[in-house]
């Protein structure tokens, strides 16, 4: 049933070949673009089918204000946190996947050719004209399918591993296949270790795939289908040996791979360079101890030489991979440098993966500082283009940036590296979402610590939030840098960023922000100060809301509360409040401090003492009273002058008069003063004598007055 679609598929491939041949021929045309006789048109400048599109695309640069084009360009739909970025992109792809599933599952429903007049005969499974194979339903194989070798070839060519196994079984296993097809099937199985790969078309899934660190464990399926097919092959060709040995070595079945190599050598079967490359990569599994391993590595290289095989870049990468996997130390580093030098003599330049392994070997976090990165970057800058050749190439930039940030702590090198990544088409070497995020984490960290402040802000504006959303640790670095430079307006804006990036619930970061705000608060303009106080009020309000929500919904993980120190920071910041928000923030902070019965930080004492009279001056009598009584409750000496001064403001008398008044007329005060002033008077007496005014004559227990002060 499906064999009829195979033929057009082959046709399209043939057409593709023809096209490429045509373009090659086209390039032979003379390159002069000038008419020969002034009349006839000059020869056409040869170009590929997408060259014009690419030229036009090259005119479009980067827009730092926009999100990636896979997201909707709308403030409501632009994702601003890592979680949302992932969720939005993957849900869009899930939709595409669902559509593809329906297309494959119900292929018989998609029969219309929309562009045809309705009278014409309808040809099934033609989704476009000319046909687009990627959008056509994929053939579906189950136990009832009638299959031929063409199906197997199709599944192998398109790397549909599970389908290929199914078709293989339907075709009758090992016996019913031509040796050629059997070999390509074996190669497919060995390459993927009988595991279905994620299809190339699911771009987002590959981009966001959880970056599992490559496991150096034996994952090769012993006695699996690949082994069976290999044993059934008779005679065993060199290609078959190459395939199975490389597969085993790739999935770390080192002993068997080595044994098979010996077997092949005894039989006189020639092996390829890539077989030796893969063996070099897993040689460490055969031997214990660094010196023995190095011996084995050298032995293999000598063996290659004896076989007459010339090494290539992958050989160098494999050697360095093994060396870096065996730990660190001078010996291994020496051998590695020696290897690179020898390969250089052969005219083989290290690839990005080779440099990655070198960095792994030399730049250990705890080890001594070794600067090999400068030379590496200088070498890479000289190259015209960086073409990805191996899978590990994508690890280079993230590791190198990590070295810049943690190991060398060199911003100039980091800038050079970043410039290299931005050159030409190199950004594709950044790897996946996870690696990109780590890369920028390192970059922003090193920039915050060591770059000039203008450059840092420029970088932050460019990267955040569309390219990179800072993690809590990086956010802390950013806050530190902003605090150091006293960038008040930016600090005030940072709260909004925390909120948007989903870090607002992290007490540590919020406290850090409050600390920074209160530190820089003094030197700022009034306008900025007002903004900062508004931010402080917002933070407290957010905390209250979160607590309310927690009570209502009975969350499992409790929200972290702000510490007394953070609340003191708020008080300090709002000590010279001018706007209502500032007063509100101060009042809220004070309320919470009293509710937690916590002591303010020493620095906040003076701020509190200053706050009280000022609050009184601005007619916030309740706040003034609360401040003074809190000071008194905590037993600070500042309570006495503060209460006198505040009271003098409220009563509009001089401080001496108030002092006398407080000293002399104890009983009459209770009746003559307004509640706020009375409270201040009480605080004065608490601070002075340790007992409140009202109780000086009576015998009420101290519990009741703590209650009464709480009521206020």
């Amino acid at each position, binding site marked *: 049933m499906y064999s009829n679609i195979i033929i057009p598929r082959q046709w399209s491939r043939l057409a593709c070949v023809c096209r490429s041949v045509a373009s090659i021929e086209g390039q032979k045309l003379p390159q002069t*673009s*000038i*008419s020969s*006789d*002034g*009349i*006839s*048109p*000059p*020869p*056409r*400048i040869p*170009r590929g089918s997408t*060259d*014009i599109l690419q*030229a*036009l695309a*090259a*005119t*479009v*640069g*980067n*827009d730092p*204000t*926009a999100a990636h084009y896979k997201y909707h*360009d*709308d*403030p*409501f739909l*632009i994702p*601003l*946190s890592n979680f949302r970025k992932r969720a939005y992109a993957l849900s869009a792809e899930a939709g595409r996947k669902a559509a593809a599933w329906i297309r494959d599952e119900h292929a018989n429903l998609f029969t219309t*050719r*929309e*562009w045809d007049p309705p009278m014409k005969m309808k040809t099934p499974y033609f*989704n*476009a*004209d*000319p046909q687009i194979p990627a959008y056509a339903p994929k053939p579906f194989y189950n136990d009832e399918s009638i299959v031929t070798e063409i199906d197997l070839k199709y599944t192998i060519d398109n790397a549909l591993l599970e389908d290929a196994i199914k078709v293989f079984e339907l075709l009758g296993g090992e016996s019913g296949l031509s040796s050629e097809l059997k070999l390509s099937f074996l190669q497919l199985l060995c390459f993927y270790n009988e595991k279905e790969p994620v299809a190339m078309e699911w771009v987002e899934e590959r981009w966001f795939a959880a970056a599992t660190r490559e496991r150096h464990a034996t994952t090769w399926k012993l006695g699996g289908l690949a082994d069976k097919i290999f044993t059934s092959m008779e005679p065993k060709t060199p290609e078959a040996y190459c395939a199975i040995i490389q597969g085993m070595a790739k999935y770390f079945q080192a002993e068997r791979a080595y044994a098979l190599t010996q077997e092949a050598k005894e039989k006189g079967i020639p092996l390829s360079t890539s077989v030796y490359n893969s063996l070099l990569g897993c040689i460490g599994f055969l031997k214990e101890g660094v010196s023995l391993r190095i011996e084995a590595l050298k032995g293999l290289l000598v063996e290659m030489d004896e076989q007459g095989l010339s090494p290539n870049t992958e050989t160098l990468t494999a050697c360095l991979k093994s060396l870096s996997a065996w730990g660190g130390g001078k010996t291994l580093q020496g051998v590695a440098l020696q290897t690179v030098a020898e390969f250089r003599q052969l005219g083989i330049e290290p690839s990005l993966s080779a440099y990655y392994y070198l960095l792994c070997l030399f730049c250990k976090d705890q080890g001594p500082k070794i600067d090999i990165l400068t030379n590496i970057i200088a070498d890479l800058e000289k190259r015209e283009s960086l073409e990805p050749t191996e899978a590990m190439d994508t690890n280079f930039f993230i590791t190198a940036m990590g070295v810049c940030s943690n190991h060398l702590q060199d911003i100039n090198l980091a800038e050079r590296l970043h410039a290299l990544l931005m050159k030409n088409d190199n950004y594709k070497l950044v790897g996946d979402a996870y690696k990109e995020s780590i890369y920028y984490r390192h970059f922003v960290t090193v920039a915050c610590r060591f770059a000039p402040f203008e450059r840092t802000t420029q970088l932050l504006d460019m990267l955040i*939030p569309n390219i990179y959303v800072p993690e809590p640790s990086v956010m802390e670095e950013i806050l530190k840098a902003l605090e150091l430079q006293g960038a008040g307006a930016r600090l005030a804006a940072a709260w909004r960023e925390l*909120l*948007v990036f*989903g870090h607002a619930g992290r007490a540590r970061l919020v406290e850090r922000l409050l600390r920074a705000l209160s530190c820089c608060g003094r030197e700022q303009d009034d306008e900025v100060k007002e903004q900062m106080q508004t931010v402080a009020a917002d933070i407290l309000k957010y905390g209250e809301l979160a607590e309310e929500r927690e009570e209502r919904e009975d969350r499992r993980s409790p929200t972290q509360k702000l510490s007394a120190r953070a609340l003191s920071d708020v008080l300090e910041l709002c000590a010279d409040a001018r706007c209502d928000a500032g007063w509100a923030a101060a009042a809220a902070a004070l309320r919470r401090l009293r509710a937690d019965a916590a002591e303010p930080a020493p620095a906040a004492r003076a701020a509190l003492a200053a706050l009280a009279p000022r609050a009184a001056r601005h007619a916030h009598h309740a706040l003034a009273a609360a401040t003074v009584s809190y000071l008194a409750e905590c037993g600070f000496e500042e309570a006495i002058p503060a209460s006198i001064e505040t009271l003098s403001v409220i009563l509009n008398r001089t401080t001496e008069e108030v002092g006398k008044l407080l000293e002399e007329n104890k009983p009459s005060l209770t009746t003559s003063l307004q509640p706020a002033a009375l409270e201040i008077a009480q605080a004065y007496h608490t601070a002075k004598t340790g007992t409140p005014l009202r109780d000086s004559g009576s015998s009420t227990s101290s519990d009741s007055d703590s209650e009464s002060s709480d009521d206020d």
Partner: protein
Amino acid sequence: MYLIFCHKSVILNKLIKMSLFIRNYKPGVAYNAQILWRFNSTTAETVKQGEDEEEFRVLDILHKKGKLQKRVNRRADIQPDRSEKMPTDQNWGNVWPGPRSFHPSSVPLPIRQGYVPKGQAPPGKKANAELMKIPNFLHLTPPVVKSQCEALKKFCTSWPKLLNSEEAIEKNYPMEIISSDYCHASPTIRNPLARIVTLRVKLSNLKLDSRARDKFLRLVGDKYDEKTDLVTLTADRCPVRKQNMDYVNYLLTACYHESWTVEDWETDKCLEDMEYYDFDLNPSKKNLVNWYLMSNNEDNNLNDEQVKNFDVSKIPNGVEYKSAVSELFNEGESDLALNKYDTSVRKLLGLPEKKIAN
């Protein structure tokens, strides 16, 4: 107090509008809804005060309006429009690289559009359907066009130097082939209109004598335009452009060669078969020549062939007479033609000019 009152009246307006909507709305009647929608989208929010007072208050037992009024909680983590963050020296081509319908948060321009009663400002750019409806050319600003042209220059060959004028082009490339390419988003890249091929050539560029030209024109029929001297051949009968192109070429070739072939019966054509008046063939010329020779006392025994080849310009005012007669016969009688004939005859015969009595 006054402020509060104003606020209330706005809410009242909204309520009234909503009730208006509910009462006018009948399920399945799209017309009403559409009108209302347009009303909402393009006119300013206020309704005249006079209308409020005319509305009856509706008894709202189930408190449905309260439900409608309920505001949806806004998300806290919405960032401000990105147009606010854009620097003034940015490259606009990067922000708006391709054709796209208008989006207010990405365009940093204070645009307004929509119909409003006199004296009010048109609605702003947000949630403005009018701005989304019209096509925009924000992706083709002059700097972008310039940079794209620069990018495409490397694919362009230089114009041949000698083809520097329309005449030179016409001379070197007398034949024109016109066909159209179509580009659209659809499952197919084919468009049936792309098969049509038109060929245009100036008749004067074909090497034809008067007989062949006459025959060519008869073959071509209405494909020839006298005003522009262009022969236009169009083919759309074959399914593919290549075939139509071949067919058009074939048509031109066939017509050309056919017009040069002389059939036996073509010699049988006599004066009566002429489709136009040729002065040289007609007795009128013979009479003129005879009269002229006689009046000059010259030999008067010319045969037909000599009469036919006699140069009329030798006769004073002969050319004028010839054209007047030809015009009279070829274009039919008209006051102008008759007057012209009159004057030319008077001149020829030396008669005095006609005196028009007023």
